[in-house]
């Protein structure tokens, strides 16, 4: 209620102050997270939304639009439907700008413009504590004669492809795989999958009871220095999984700059950095130009992955 009054009075006085254009943000803003709540991008985006309310006095909300095992793409399409004025901001993983254009659902190479990249997921391959394997080599040996089921966030997504490529290189095959929207402690405990591709945030509560087989990323996770990366174990390239903020193409530059300023402040702030230390994620801020460069280099790495899988 208070914020409504503040916003009302601000606009009222603006009316009579003769300013030419309404300053962004002139209305409520929505952050769209195409995953169910609980993971890093959700937590961090909510931090940004809180900071947004404080800084601009305008309401900001975070909505979750899970795709039901279809990956983040249905949620990403919603950002495409919105007007290009900064009122809907997407919090997307690497898969959306790189894989989105290739699956023919309406996302083009230039549909989204990055504001910045802010988190690298501690993405791992985990198995339950009583599994008879502790790293990829043992998994390969076990999988020769037994069925191993992989749980992942979507067939076309990068971590899934990385895992399958590593399997191919090491000479084994998963008996089957299933796409989930949420892979957490329960997925392993209930026996829905034998190994899962997930982030550390989601398996935090049972971290001591399960085995981490490998880490999908450029470097080893600070919290788990004994777990080798997937490129160390299987020789595929070191693709990293990140999440960034995106807006629809055609959004004005001052809008993008405003969003970037607030997000940078949040990500480099104390709360986010503490979260990084506790969970092993890397939280930082890479601006627009760096993000564009990163997307380009990651696209190349992704093509290499696809070549392996052919």
């Amino acid at each position, binding site marked *: 209620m208070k914020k409504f009054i503040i916003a*009302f009075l601000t*606009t009222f006085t603006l*009316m009579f102050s003769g300013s030419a254009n*309404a300053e962004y943000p*002139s*209305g409520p803003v929505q952050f769209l997270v195409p995953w169910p709540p609980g993971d890093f991008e959700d937590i961090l985006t909510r931090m940004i939304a809180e900071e947004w309310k404080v800084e601009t006095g305008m309401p900001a909300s975070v909505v979750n639009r899970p795709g039901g095992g279809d990956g983040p793409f249905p949620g990403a399409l919603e950002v495409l439907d919105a007007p290009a004025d900064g009122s809907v901001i997407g919090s997307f993983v690497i898969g959306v700008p790189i894989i989105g254009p290739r699956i023919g659902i309406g996302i083009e190479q230039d549909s989204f413009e990055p504001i910045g990249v802010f988190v690298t997921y501690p993405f791992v391959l985990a198995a339950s504590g009583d599994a008879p394997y502790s790293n990829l080599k043992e998994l390969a040996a076990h999988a020769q004669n037994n069925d191993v089921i992989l749980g992942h966030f979507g067939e076309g997504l990068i971590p899934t492809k990385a895992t399958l490529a590593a399997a191919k290189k090491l000479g084994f095959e998963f*008996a*089957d795989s*299933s796409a989930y929207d949420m892979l957490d402690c329960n997925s392993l405990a209930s026996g829905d999958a034998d190994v899962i591709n997930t982030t550390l945030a989601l398996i935090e509560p049972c971290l001591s009871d399960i085995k981490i087989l490998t880490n999908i990323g450029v470097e080893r996770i600070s919290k788990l220095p004994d777990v080798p990366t997937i490129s160390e174990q299987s020789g595929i390239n070191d693709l990293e999984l990140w999440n960034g903020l995106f807006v629809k193409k055609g959004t004005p530059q001052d809008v993008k700059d405003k969003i970037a300023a607030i997000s940078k402040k949040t990500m480099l702030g104390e709360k986010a950095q503490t979260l990084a230390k506790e969970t092993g994620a890397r939280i930082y801020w890479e601006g627009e130009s760096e993000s564009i460069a990163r997307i380009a280099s990651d696209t190349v790495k992704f093509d290499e992955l696809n070549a392996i899988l052919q």
Partner: protein
Amino acid sequence: MKIRVFENDNILSSIKDKPLNIKTISKKFVSKIPKDKKFKVENLFEFKRVTGDLTLSIIFLMLVSFLLISFNTESGWDGRELSQKRVGKILKQQWVGPLICMVILVPATIYNLYQSTIQLNINKRLRMPSRIKHELFQWLKSLEFIFYFLIYTNIITIFGYLISTVIFAIFLTTRLGYRSLEWILRSAIAAFIIVIIFRSILQIKTPVNIWLYKFLPQNFEVFMKIYF
């Protein structure tokens, strides 16, 4: 059938001569449960097929046949791979959901049509008049209000949420027969309150490109766009 009449008047005349002796006054007996209306809880869940039921059942049958015909191409059935080693790989395919739907839908529709025709035959045998024309006319009458609703959604882009809602409210009130000034004022005020609560306070999203607001000075335009 002939009705027997008392040919012997003696009984009647003997009663007529002597007046009735009503000295004892007793309360007339009133049963707590009216004879013809015994209450049954089951009646609440009773279902009787009414006029128009058969029409809708036939329409559903046509819809279901259409879905069946297009099932092949539209649900991914033509891309099916049924020879898989693992059952799970079959269950993951796209047509599983639609197939389950069809398996439930087709028998249910046919059985429903069958039950509907039974009721129709009962009605025919009892020579109950069919009010199907009246029923269908009622259905079409409701389309008028749907038409008004669609017009309302379209004039919002022209006149803005506040004005179109007030206009729509007043129009509907007069169309429904409340023509006095008191009712018109009530509906206008109620519409205004609805707009304030949902648009200004809760900030729900309504269309932003409004033709009417273009004629306002810049600052007013912004204000109206945000709060109304």
